[in-house]
């Protein structure tokens, strides 16, 4: 396209040619005060080698044509001169004998004539003895330049003889350059001086800062609490965060060592009140809740409050009924969800860092491969450790996250009864359980307190009680303002009733279970330890380890409360320490179906209640045994009676099955069973029962029935 280029026409070259480009800018020595070029380590090494080579060449040449030495000598002289200076140093460092030899060989007169310069030069060189290395480097640098020139001259021109004038000129040059060198050293001295000055200044600054710091501390020590009028005035104005932050840190500082740092005449209570007010204003809490929180976290209050300002990481639980974590992870990553395995303690959790797609609407979610669930809500289910072919009750199940986890741990066998008091929220349970492919479930809408009348022969019961939600403030900000004493106590009361009901629903005679897990997403002592302590007093239950190896121990003593010492076995989780929602988990083991208070009275009514309970129990068992081998669940009765191979095999299979799932829970069971046996045999007062082991249970029941 366009015009054709004329090839035969020589184009005039534009701009400077290659050679001109290659030429460096003119170096104006001394005029511009350019310091000696510093060579890198490698360059130095190369330089030294080159020097050696050249020296060797020169020496050989000199030996060969000693009389004609003066031809090449003058050109090399400057280098020599420098060598004498540099070599001195070099000789000190490493004996470069060749060079020395060379020096000896050089004609005396030349050297002598140079000596003046050298002598004149020496004193400063002595002065800078300390910086010999540096100077040497400089000298070496000079040498390279000179050498290069000299080499070029000697090779190119090969002039037979050069006049003395030239020599002298060169000498002058050398002296000048020597001066240069001196100047360099002076310059460096300047740098040194400057650096010394700097150091001095820094020190001064430091001392000043120290003093200022001390002043600050003093001012802190002098920190004055605002008077009542000031507080009132402030209350009218919108809160100034900077002032509040400052005052909060001051008060905390004072409180850390109260006796020393306090203002005279002010009590600790005044400080505490002010701190509480300030924190309330700063983080928008009501005073009641803040007071409680301060009492709960005397030292970590700030961490806790700040942790509540940020949401916890989004976590999802792999539905092991449909997929595996190692399949789900890559699948989600393909969809643009950045996930990573959650924590050491969970084999099914994934933490979501960021996502390009809505997590609750991916085809995988809809197909039930995972459930959006907070990390903390794994914990009660892990503590419950449901086994296959058990009957498990989840008393307050909505929206079904924990329920589905239970079903996944049970591998869709046995029975999972999910109950919730709120009918609207029950729909979520139904939907979630179906989506996640849970088929062993039963969803009902009872009040939890009435559950024991419906069915009360569960192996394990999970009660994730409704609570004030003080552990999940980051999820629901409203909690900050709308909770007061009454709410907490109302919750606490309901929780006590629910927990007793949950315990009543659990069957102590269960072969594998008899466990109740109580959990809340509250951190209030009234809703946690107090409730569990109440249950321990009211029912035949005892606390057992949760099987969670982290988390803080529950309170045994808290303010006016003195709880059962075993409450140490319960676990608390906090947002600021575990990066989970605030949570409480306690695991109870029910060792007797009797209710303590009523047992003592030996009331007629109690007898009836018990009988009714037993009747219900045996009814269920009767049905089961009637069905015989066709049902998966076997009663002790059938095991006992069917002596032939089949029964035994089945029993063995079952035992091994229960052995495998989790050693931890098994251990607990082992711990648990002797108690049960003891209790049974004790009650029956029969030696045979003891021998029969756990089979005794059924026998015992039959006996009771017979008595009736």
């Amino acid at each position: 396209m366009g015009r054709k280029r004329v090839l035969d026409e020589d184009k005039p070259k534009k701009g400077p040619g290659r050679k001109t480009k290659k030429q460096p800018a003119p170096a104006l020595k001394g005029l511009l005060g350019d310091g000696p070029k510093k060579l890198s380590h490698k360059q130095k090494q190369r330089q030294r080698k080159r020097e050696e080579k050249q020296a060797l060449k020169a020496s050989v040449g000199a030996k060969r044509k000693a009389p004609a030495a003066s031809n090449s000598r003058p050109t090399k002289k400057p280098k020599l001169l420098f060598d004498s200076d540099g070599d001195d140093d070099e000789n000190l460092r490493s004996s470069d004998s060749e060079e020395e030899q060379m020096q000896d060989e050089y004609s005396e007169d030349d050297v002598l004539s140079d000596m003046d310069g050298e002598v004149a030069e020496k004193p400063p060189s002595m002065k800078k003895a300390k910086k010999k290395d540096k100077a040497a480097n400089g000298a070496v640098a000079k040498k390279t330049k000179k050498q290069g020139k000299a080499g070029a001259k000697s090779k190119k021109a090969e002039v037979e003889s050069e006049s003395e004038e030239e020599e002298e000129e060169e000498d002058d040059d050398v002296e000048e350059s020597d001066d240069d060198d001196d100047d360099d050293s002076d310059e460096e001295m300047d740098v040194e001086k400057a650096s010394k000055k700097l150091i001095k200044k820094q020190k001064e600054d430091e001392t000043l800062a120290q003093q200022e710091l001390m002043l600050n501390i003093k001012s802190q020590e002098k920190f004055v609490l605002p008077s009542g009028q000031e507080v009132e005035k402030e209350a009218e104005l919108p809160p100034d965060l900077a002032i509040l932050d400052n005052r909060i840190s001051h008060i905390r500082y004072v409180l850390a060592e109260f006796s020393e740092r306090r203002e005279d005449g002010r009590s600790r209570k005044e400080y505490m009140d002010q701190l509480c007010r300030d924190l309330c204003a700063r983080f928008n809490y009501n005073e009641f809740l803040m007071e409680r929180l301060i009492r709960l976290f005397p030292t970590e209050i700030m961490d806790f409050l700040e942790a509540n300002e940020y949401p916890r990481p989004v976590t999802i639980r792999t539905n092991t009924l449909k997929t595996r974590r190692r399949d789900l992870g890559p699948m989600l990553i393909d969809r643009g969800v950045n996930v990573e395995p959650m924590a050491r303690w969970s084999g099914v959790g994934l933490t979501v860092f960021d996502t390009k797609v809505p997590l609750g609407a991916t085809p995988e979610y809809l197909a039930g491969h995972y459930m959006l669930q907070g990390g903390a809500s794994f914990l009660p289910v892990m503590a419950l450790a449901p086994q296959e072919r058990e009957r498990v009750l989840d008393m307050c199940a909505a929206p079904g996250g924990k329920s589905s986890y239970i079903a996944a741990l049970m591998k869709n066998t046995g029975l999972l009864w999910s109950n919730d008091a709120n009918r609207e929220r029950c729909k979520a349970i139904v939907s979630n359980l179906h989506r996640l492919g849970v088929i062993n479930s039963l969803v009902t809408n009872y009040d939890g307190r009435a559950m024991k009348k419906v069915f009360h022969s569960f192996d394990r019961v999970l009660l994730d009680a409704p609570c004030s939600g003080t552990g999940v403030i980051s999820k629901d900000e409203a909690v900050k303002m709308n909770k007061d004493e009454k709410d907490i106590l109302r919750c606490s009361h309901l929780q006590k009733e629910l927990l007793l009901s949950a315990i009543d629903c659990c069957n102590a005679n269960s072969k594998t279970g008899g466990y109740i897990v109580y959990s809340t997403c509250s951190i209030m002592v009234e809703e946690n330890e107090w409730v569990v302590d109440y249950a321990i007093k009211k029912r035949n239950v005892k606390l057992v380890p949760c099987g969670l190896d982290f988390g803080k121990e529950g309170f045994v003593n808290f303010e006016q409360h003195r709880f059962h010492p075993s409450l140490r076995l319960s676990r608390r989780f906090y947002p600021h320490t575990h990066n989970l929602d605030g949570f409480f988990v306690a695991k109870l083991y029910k060792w007797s179906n009797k209710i303590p208070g009523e047992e003592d009275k030996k009331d007629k009514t109690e007898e009836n209640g018990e009988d009714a309970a037993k009747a219900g129990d045996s009814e269920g068992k009767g049905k089961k045994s009637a069905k015989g081998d066709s049902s998966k669940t076997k009663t002790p009765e059938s095991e006992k009676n069917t002596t032939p191979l089949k029964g035994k095999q089945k029993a063995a299979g079952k035992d091994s099955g229960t052995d495998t799932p989790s050693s931890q829970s098994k251990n607990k069971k082992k711990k648990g069973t002797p108690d049960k046996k003891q209790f049974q045999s004790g009650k029956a007062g029969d030696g045979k029962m003891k021998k029969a082991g756990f089979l005794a249970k059924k026998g015992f029941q039959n006996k009771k029935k017979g008595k009736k």
Partner: protein
Amino acid sequence: MRPLTQEETNTFFEKLSKYIGENIKLLIDRQDGSYCFRLHKERVYYMSEEQLKIGSSAAGETLLSIGSCFGKFTKSGKFHLHVTALDYLAPYAKHKVWLKPSAEQQFLYGHHIMKSGLGRLTEDTEQYQGVIVYNMNDLPLGFGVAAKSTQACRNCDPMTLVVFHQADTGQYIRDEDTLT
């Protein structure tokens, strides 16, 4: 909660056989225990014997779901399969349809399937045959009814409907309240 009457059983099985054919047998005669269908509040639930036994202790009105829900009888006596039955239909499915990734989302929002979104189709699918819908990763998405036979599908233009939508997993979110 009660067992299905003969008439109901017929209607129900007829519907079910459109999707899984004679594999219905496998749902009833199971190796791992006995399972049964029960009618509760016009809905058909599939459950194990133990669930049935214990579940019967729950009163009618408070029992919301037991086992897995297959669908419901309409007021006019027809049977509607729900997406909750998908877990049982998918493994035994006779006729399958695979969707292209582009059509996947469309289907999950409740749209019918057009020829353009069709990835694969089981051979010898007849018209009005029940089909299970999968995505290309073999993840069951729902089910529907073939609007055209496989033969007819081959030579029709890309905008014609080939599968009518009946249920999809998106309903777990869209119709959470009315699902069961």
